[in-house]
């Protein structure tokens, strides 16, 4: 099939940026969306032009790098799918596909479709960790954990930090990301020592990075490639309220 790609081009963070259109012929339905860009880029390189910069790494749907906002949807039209797992059978001959970078003040564009997501790393540094004593490794499964809690923690831990929640939210809010990280630790015994500081510090850092606030529209949950649920945001709110009201300093 033949497609028209309308791709955001931006030389660097200070460039204003613009859309550039490309015609791509003979696209196979079995290609992934990133392979479409590989073909386009090979052609651009052969023509002596600047290839489109885009983030990618594992191409297995687990690393969270492939940030593309495709026709108004983070990671394209399929539910619970990263861009690398989106295949061209989602499109028809003659379609025009608009591809933009994640748009958020806290995710400045580096070049074309690549954005700087280190604001997420700084939120993790603020509290998304647990302290572990050095010495002999403790027995696995030594601490009994309720199955429901273990499952909920595991579901929250499925977050790959891709930033689709921020990209999809009309407020560029990072609440789904932060709530997943807070939840996975708050639900487990290992997360208890830093529990209160974690909720307070991660939310404070999230605000400092310039993410918007949550208005509970649910767009993040709808676009999350790992199906992280809004119940995590409610849990983060409870953690934050509990810590804010009970912690003395």
């Amino acid at each position: 099939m033949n497609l028209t790609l309308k791709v955001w081009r931006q030389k660097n963070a200070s460039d204003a940026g613009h859309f550039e259109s490309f015609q791509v012929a003979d696209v196979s339905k079995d290609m992934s969306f990133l392979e479409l860009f590989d073909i386009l880029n090979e052609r651009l390189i052969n023509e002596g032009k600047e290839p489109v910069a885009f983030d990618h790494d594992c191409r297995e749907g687990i690393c969270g790098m492939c940030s593309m906002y495709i026709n108004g949807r983070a990671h394209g039209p399929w539910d619970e799918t990263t861009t690398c797992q989106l295949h061209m059978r989602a499109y028809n001959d003659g379609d025009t596909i608009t591809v933009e970078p994640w748009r958020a003040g806290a995710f400045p564009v580096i070049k074309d479709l690549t954005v700087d997501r280190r604001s997420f790393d700084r939120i993790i540094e603020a509290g998304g960790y647990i302290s572990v004593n050095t010495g002999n490794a403790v027995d696995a499964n030594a601490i009994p954990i309720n199955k429901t809690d273990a499952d909920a923690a595991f579901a929250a831990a499925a977050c790959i930090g891709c930033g689709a929640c921020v990209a999809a939210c009309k407020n560029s809010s990072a609440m789904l990301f932060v709530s997943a990280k807070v939840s996975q630790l708050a639900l487990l015994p290992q997360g208890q020592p830093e529990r209160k500081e974690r909720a307070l510090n991660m939310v404070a850092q999230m605000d400092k990075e310039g993410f918007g606030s949550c208005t509970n529209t649910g767009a993040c949950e709808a676009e999350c490639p790992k199906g992280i649920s809004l119940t995590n945001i409610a849990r983060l709110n409870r953690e934050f309220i509990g810590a804010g009201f009970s912690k003395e300093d």
Partner: protein
Amino acid sequence: MKWSQFFNTSIGKKLLVGATGFFLCSFVIVHLAGNISLLYNDEGHAFNTYATFMSHNGLIQFIAWGLKVVILLHAILALQLTFKNLAARPVKYAVKPGNKTSSWFSRQMAMMGSILFIFLVVHLAQFWWAMHYGVDVPTASYGGTEEYRDLYLVVQQAFTHEYNVIIYVIGMIGLSFHLIHGFKSACQTFGLNHKKYNGIINFIGVWFFGILIPAGFALIPVVIFFKQY
């Protein structure tokens, strides 16, 4: 974290917006319960007795001024958050998802809140001002010695004009659309999200606050308008 820091975070501010929102939800129930007496065919005896009580009882006067502070606090904090949210995306998307990923109601809270605020200013200027400070408000005594300011008559006369009816119906559509998302959103902000209760929270938010209450309010001007024919 100090209280000043806590309530300056995004979640802290949202908690204040949610808490004031819950208070305003309780207010609309009381307000409708009283105002429904505008539809009684008793020449306003019940309504004017109620209106006089509400405007003279000390405790209610205190709550009424508190209510105005709460409305302003709710609006100012929500606007602050809205502007910060808009600023969080300096470059907008060329293609938007529309209703594919979120409901229209959930994205229009600021718009509906603004419509409601304008409506409230008109509403207070029209009736609250007349009741408290109006100079040529008629009186009624219902055969007794006590003279009531006849707010009932003021309301009945106002709603013989179609433009007033239209303003009030638009105001109540604003209230409906605001509360369809508002009530359950405030619950989520307070962390009230639980499989066993989400159904009832959604039902109360959408059907009770979002539809029944605004429809009840809107019914009053519509019925009064059609009574003249």
